[in-house]
């Protein structure tokens, strides 16, 4: 047991005494980050506050896609279709059925989960390239038909009035941050508990997972449900941020944008996804402001190039690049890791 105790206590248990000192610079860094996210936006005028909120919405949607692509190894090129379901159902529940915003939020998460679950059932039979095609076709069908159904205003969309508490764009931004924090928490617990481990095992090797007693199909579906609930929340925020929702913006470009920020941000790296979403969603707004709209098209063209470069050269994405920082921020040393793909460790164990 001696070795086990030492390892459980973590290799640097001797340094624990110094932990208070070690945490001072880290806490300071967290403070700066918090101030930037919480205090700086107070200075923003309405338009930019909305863009920041939209950034948070896309971050949540990307975290959702990360559950599917990153943890479960399932592709979705129709993720905007699930976001749309959350958006339309929450708006519908609030506007047509006179429910409160909070009921709408719940309905958004639930409906997203159900829609995604249905796709999960398809994914049990249809895999890989063909699943990509089905999700793509679903996204298009959702945009052309589902979101123009009679109950959703036949193409004219649905009103999504914000509750009094969130009427201000700054208030809405902070609320979006709270939802993001919630999603990050659930994502963390997902990864660090039974479900996440089972989903990862299924991704890497279904036979091994089954021989560990993991019901493979059920955990695939669980991954779809978790992802759907996350993106349903994002959809709800999307609808109420704009005050109404119609099928116009919920298109294939959005699906690809989500794949882009998820993959370039870094699969299985929430920190990388958040950082890249912030850069890629919020920055172009300012570029557009200062240099004109055409420049944001060029930026749009830059995205796919980044995606290909990431796929070819940096499979770990931004998350891999910022690992020294994230490791340091969470109490570890500031150490440059080698890319996961190229790890070639020796035989010897830890000292």
């Amino acid at each position, binding site marked *: *047991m001696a*070795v*086990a105790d030492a*390892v*459980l206590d973590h*290799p640097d248990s001797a340094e624990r005494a110094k932990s208070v000192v070690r945490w001072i610079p880290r806490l300071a860094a967290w403070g700066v980050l918090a101030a930037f996210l919480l205090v700086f936006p107070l200075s923003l005028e309405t338009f930019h506050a909305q863009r920041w909120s939209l950034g948070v919405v896309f971050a949540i949607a990307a975290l959702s896609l990360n559950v599917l692509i990153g943890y479960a190894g399932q592709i979705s090129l129709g993720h905007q279709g699930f976001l749309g379901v959350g958006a339309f159902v929450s708006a519908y529940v609030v506007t047509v059925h006179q429910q409160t915003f909070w009921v709408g939020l719940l309905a958004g998460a639930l409906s997203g989960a159900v829609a995604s679950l249905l796709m999960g059932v398809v994914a049990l039979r249809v895999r890989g390239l063909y699943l990509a095609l089905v999700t793509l076709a679903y996204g298009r069908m959702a945009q052309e038909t589902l979101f123009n159904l009679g109950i959703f205003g036949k193409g004219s969309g649905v009103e999504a009035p914000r509750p009094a508490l969130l009427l201000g764009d700054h208030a809405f931004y902070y609320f979006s941050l709270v939802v993001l924090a919630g999603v990050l*928490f*659930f994502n*963390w*617990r*997902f990864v*660090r*508990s*039974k*479900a*996440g*481990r*089972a989903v*990862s*095992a299924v991704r*890497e*090797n279904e*036979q*091994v*997972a*089954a*021989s*560990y*007693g*993991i*019901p*493979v199909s059920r*955990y695939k579906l*669980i991954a779809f449900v*978790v992802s759907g609930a996350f993106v349903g929340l994002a959809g709800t925020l999307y609808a109420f941020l704009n005050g109404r929702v119609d099928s116009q913006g919920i298109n294939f470009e959005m699906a690809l944008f989500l794949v882009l920020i998820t993959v370039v941000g870094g699969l299985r790296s929430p920190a990388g996804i958040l950082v890249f979403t912030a850069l890629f969603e919020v920055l172009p707004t300012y570029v557009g402001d200062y240099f004109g709209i055409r420049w944001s098209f060029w930026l749009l063209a830059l995205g796919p190039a980044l995606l290909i470069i990431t796929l070819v050269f940096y499979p770990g994405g931004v998350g891999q690049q910022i690992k020294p920082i994230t490791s340091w921020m969470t109490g570890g040393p500031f150490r440059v890791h080698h890319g*996961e793909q190229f*790890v*070639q*460790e020796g*035989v010897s*164990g*830890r000292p």
Partner: protein
Amino acid sequence: MAVLDVDDISIRFGGLQALGNVSVKAQELEIVGLIGPNGAGKTTLFNCITGFYRPNDGRVRFLGVDVTEIPIHQRAAMGMGRTFQQVGLVKGATVLENLITAQHTKVEYSAGAGILGAGNTWAEEKVLRQRAMEILDLVGLAHLAHRRVAGLPYGTMKNVEMAAVLATDPEILMLDEPTSGMGPEESHTFGDVLLRLRKELGLTVLMIEHHVPLVVAVCDYVYCLNFGQLLTEGKPEDVRTHPEVVTAYLGEEAEEVA
């Protein structure tokens, strides 16, 4: 009552009879060996027992229950633990994470409670971690706990795999060529570890093994398969000197030479 009772199993793939009327038993605390030339159907038999294949005929009984029709993961939950010829591990995860994953059926909280971070899940996670470390200590791998599996040498991976299967808390341990990739020295040590594990954990073992000295040293009973048929069975010494077994292996060697 036998822990494992494979009764008259047959399986065909297209026109090929992969297994024909094979019966195998493992009594409690026995170490049973399964030998035979390549392509004899040993791994196919493993796959029939654990549920990866559904036999055309015959029954598989485990702990007195007929499990022939139930899915893989339920058999695993009942206590069937197996290793794979090509190292069955989650290679992107660390050794410790693999052992925690392997305890899946021992986790009492629900998947949903875990995701929501419910109160009881945190303490239980600690217990899972603790148990994983105990097992790693038992097999002498604790120093590798935080290493990613993908970077480990092949022989070490085989050991980690066995540790992970032990973490499932099996009633029967089914090993598919556990010493492949090990030298004679290492496989000798492995035999000692296996005997110790049986004593300490009260395990029944069924193993596919090519290393004849190891089989003779640790097995209580041996079955020999050839072309999907049971060639002979009995005490290791008797099987080893059985003329047909000798011919079967000789034939294989002759082919390898040719």
